[in-house]
C-alpha cells in the first residue's frame, strides 16, 4: 500500500542476510596458514562480504530501489537475493538458499512486529547499516556507497509522519502475513513459541512518546483538570529512558536489527508448516503463475542495475552450506513442504517475448562460470572437517 516500503524491506532483509552469511563463513573458515587451496579463509570471507555489499549498495541499483513503487511478490524479491548471494565466489545450493531466505524473513518480521513505534523501523534499518559499515570499514570506496544510501534514507524518511510510518509497517506486515517458520535461535531465546508465533511482551519500556498506561484525567468545561483516577492491568510497563538517534551516527538505543548470531550459536530452521498455513499457501501456489508484467519490469530494472563481479579466470566458485552437514542440506531439499517452496521464477512462462528476451539477457550476463572440471569444491571436504571436530 505504501509506495515507500521497498527500500526498507530490501535493506533490512539484506542486512539479515549478511549477518547469517558472515556467521556461516566464520563457522566454516580455516586460519590462513593452515588452509588448503580448497578451504575457506578469512580473506575469502572478507572478499565475499565486500563483493556482496558493494553490489547491494551500487548507486544505480539504489536509484531504482528508492523510486516510489508497490511491493512485489516474495518470489520476485527472492530472485534479487538469489543474485545478490551469488555476487561473489560463493555458491549456495537451493536448500541453503531457501534456509537463508527463511531466516532473513522471519528475523525482519520479528523486528517489524516488535518495533515500539512504527518510526522505529528506521532505527532498525540504521542498526543494519551500522553493522554493514563495520563489515567493510577497511574499504573506503564501499563505505562511501553505504553512507550515500544512509543519507538518502535520512532524506527520504526522517520527515515522514507517524501515520505514514504506520502505513509502511502495515504494508510490511501484509507481506509477512501467515509466515510462521520456526527458527531455533528464536525458540531457544523464547522469542518465538513452538507454534511459530512470536512472543509479544506486556512489560518493559513503553515507546518514546507514550505514557505508561494507568492514568485517567478528567477536565471540566473550562479545561481545568478536576479529577485523577488510576486503573491497573496485568501489564508491567515502565517509562522509556531515551530516544534513539536518527542521525548518520549515533546511539540507536533499540537493539532490534543488531546482529544476534555468533559462531557459537548455529542457526536452524524448522520448515514444517501447520495445517492452517497449508490451506492458505496451497491456494497461492496451485495457480500457475506467469510473473506479472509489473514484476518483470521491476526485476529487469533492479537486476539491470546490479553490477555482478565475475570471478577472475582461473578462480573457482566456493560452496557455502547453511546446514551443518551436506547430508542435512540434501535432506532439507528433499523434504521441504510443497507449500513453502519459493518457486524460483520461471522466465519462460512469461507472455511478453520482448520482456523475456531482455530479462534473459540480463540474467545471462549475471551467470558466473561453473567451476572447472577437476577442481575440488571447498564444500566437499566440509564433511571431513566436521567429523574431525
Amino acid at each position: 500500500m505504501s509506495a515507500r516500503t521497498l527500500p526498507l524491506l530490501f535493506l533490512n532483509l539484506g542486512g539479515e542476510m549478511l549477518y547469517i552469511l558472515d556467521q556461516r563463513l566464520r563457522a566454516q573458515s580455516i586460519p590462513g596458514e593452515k588452509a588448503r587451496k580448497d578451504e575457506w579463509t578469512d580473506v575469502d570471507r572478507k572478499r565475499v562480504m565486500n563483493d556482496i555489499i558493494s553490489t547491494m549498495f551500487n548507486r544505480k541499483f539504489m536509484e531504482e530501489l528508492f523510486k516510489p513503487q508497490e511491493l512485489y511478490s516474495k518470489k520476485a524479491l527472492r530472485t534479487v537475493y538469489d543474485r545478490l548471494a551469488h555476487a561473489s565466489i560463493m555458491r549456495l545450493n537451493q536448500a541453503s538458499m531457501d534456509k537463508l531466505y527463511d531466516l532473513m524473513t522471519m528475523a525482519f518480521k520479528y523486528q517489524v512486529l516488535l518495533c515500539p513505534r512504527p518510526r522505529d523501523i528506521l532505527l532498525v534499518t540504521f542498526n543494519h547499516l551500522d553493522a554493514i559499515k563495520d563489515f567493510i570499514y577497511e574499504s573506503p570506496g564501499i563505505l562511501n556507497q553505504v553512507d550515500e544510501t544512509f543519507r538518502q534514507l535520512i532524506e527520504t524518511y526522517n520527515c515522514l509522519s507517524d501515520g505514514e510510518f504506520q502505513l509502511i509497517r502495515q504494508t510490511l506486515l501484509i507481506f509477512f502475513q501467515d509466515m510462521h517458520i520456526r527458527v531455533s535461535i528464536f525458540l531457544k531465546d523464547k522469542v518465538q513459541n513452538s507454534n511459530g508465533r512470536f512472543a509479544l511482551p506486556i512489560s518493559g519500556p513503553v515507546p518514546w512518546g507514550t505514557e505508561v498506561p494507568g492514568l485517567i484525567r478528567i477536565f471540566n468545561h473550562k479545561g481545568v483538570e478536576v479529577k485523577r483516577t488510576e486503573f491497573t492491568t496485568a501489564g508491567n510497563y515502565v517509562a522509556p529512558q531515551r530516544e534513539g538517534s536518527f542521525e548518520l551516527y549515533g546511539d540507536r538505543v533499540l537493539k532490534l536489527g543488531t546482529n544476534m548470531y555468533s559462531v557459537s550459536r548455529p542457526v536452524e530452521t524448522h520448515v514444517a508448516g501447520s495445517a492452517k498455513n497449508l490451506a492458505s499457501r496451497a491456494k497461492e501456489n496451485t495457480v500457475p503463475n506467469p510473473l506479472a508484467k509489473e514484476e518483470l519490469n521491476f526485476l529487469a530494472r533492479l537486476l539491470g542495475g546490479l553490477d555482478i563481479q565475475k570471478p577472475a579466470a582461473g578462480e573457482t566458485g566456493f560452496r557455502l552450506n547453511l546446514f551443518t552437514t551436506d547430508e542435512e542440506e540434501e535432506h532439507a531439499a528433499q523434504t521441504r513442504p510443497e507449500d513453502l517452496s519459493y518457486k524460483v521464477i520461471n522466465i519462460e512462462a512469461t507472455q511478453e517475448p520482448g520482456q523475456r528476451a531482455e530479462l534473459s539477457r540480463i540474467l545471462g550476463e549475471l551467470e558466473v562460470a561453473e567451476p572447472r572440471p577437476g577442481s575440488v569444491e571447498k564444500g566437499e571436504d566440509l564433511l571431513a572437517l566436521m567429523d574431525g571436530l
Partner: protein
Amino acid sequence: PPRYRRERALALRSSSSALYNNLTVLCPPARPARAFGAVHGTTLSLLGPEGPPRQLPARGGSALSTPLLTQAAWCELPARVLLVLTSQRGVQMYEADGSTLVFWHALDVPEHPAAHSVFARGISAAGERFICVGTSSGAVLVFDIPPKGTNVTLSEVLEQHRDPITDIAAEQGQAPEGAGDLVTADDSGTLCLWSTGEEFTLLGKIPGSGCTCSSVTLWNGIVAAGYGNGQIRLWEAGTGQLRAQVSAHARWIYALDLAPLTGKLLSGAEDSFVHVWRLSRDPDTDDVEIQHCHAECVTDTQVCGARFCDPSGDTFAVTGYDLSEILCYGPA
C-alpha cells in the same frame, strides 16, 4: 471480579491483516443472527450463521495484481443495510449478505505510483440516508443511498482534512444542541465535526498534534478518539473542549467501539490488550466521566479489530494480526 470471559473462537478462512478497525459485526435485528467480517490482504472474510464462510475480493485490479483492501463495514440505514469495502482502488458497496454488488466508485489512481499512496479508508452510515467514505487525500466522499436498487450517487465531497482519513463515526445516541452528528478523523489527529443533510456543514475542527487518531466514536455529544500513542481522549463535540485523557494502552490503538444503550467503550491496541470502559455524564456538573471496567489480554497478539456484539455491550469480539480466528467474549 471479571466482567467478561472468553466464550469461543470462530474460525476464519484466513488471518486478519494489521489494519485499523479491522472487524465489522452485523447484529440482530438487522440480521437474524450475528455476522462478522475481517479483511485479509485483498479479500474480506465473511462469517455468518448460515452457509459456509465466504470471501469477497477487492475490485479494480488487473488479472494478475489485485489491490489491497483497507477496511470493510456494514452500514445500517433505516431503509437498508449495505456492506462497504474500501481499497487502494476505490469503494465497493454490496447488499448486506455480500451477494450482490450494488455500487462501485473508482478513485483517481495515478499511472505511476507517487510517493503518496492512494486509497480509501474510513466508512460510516450518516444522517439516515448517506454513507461517508474517507480517502488518502483527506477528502470525505458522501454517497446518497436510495432505499432500494443501485442508483447510488456521489452527493458531496468534503475537503477539510489535509491528511489521510483514518475513521468516520456517526452519533449513536442523542446529539445535544449544536453538537453535530458526524465526526471524521485523520492521520495527523485532526477531528472534524459535521452536521449531516442535503449539504453537510462543518461545525468545528479539533486540530491534531501530529499523533494519529486511528479510531473514533460519537455518543451523546462526546467524541471518543483512540490515538497512536495509546491514549484515549474524550472531546465535547459541541465546543471542541478536551474533557478526559486516558493513558489507556502501551502501543498504537487500532480499534474503538461504543455500546449506545450503556455508554460502554471498547478499545483494542497493538499492546495485546482490549479494555472496556464506561462513559457517562454527571447531570449536575455536566462533566464527562470515564471508568475502567475490564481488561483482557490476548496473548501474543496485536489486536486490530474490536466490536461490541450487542447494543448494551454485554458481548464483544476481537481480531488480531495473523490470527485466523475471531475471539468472542461474553458476561462472566
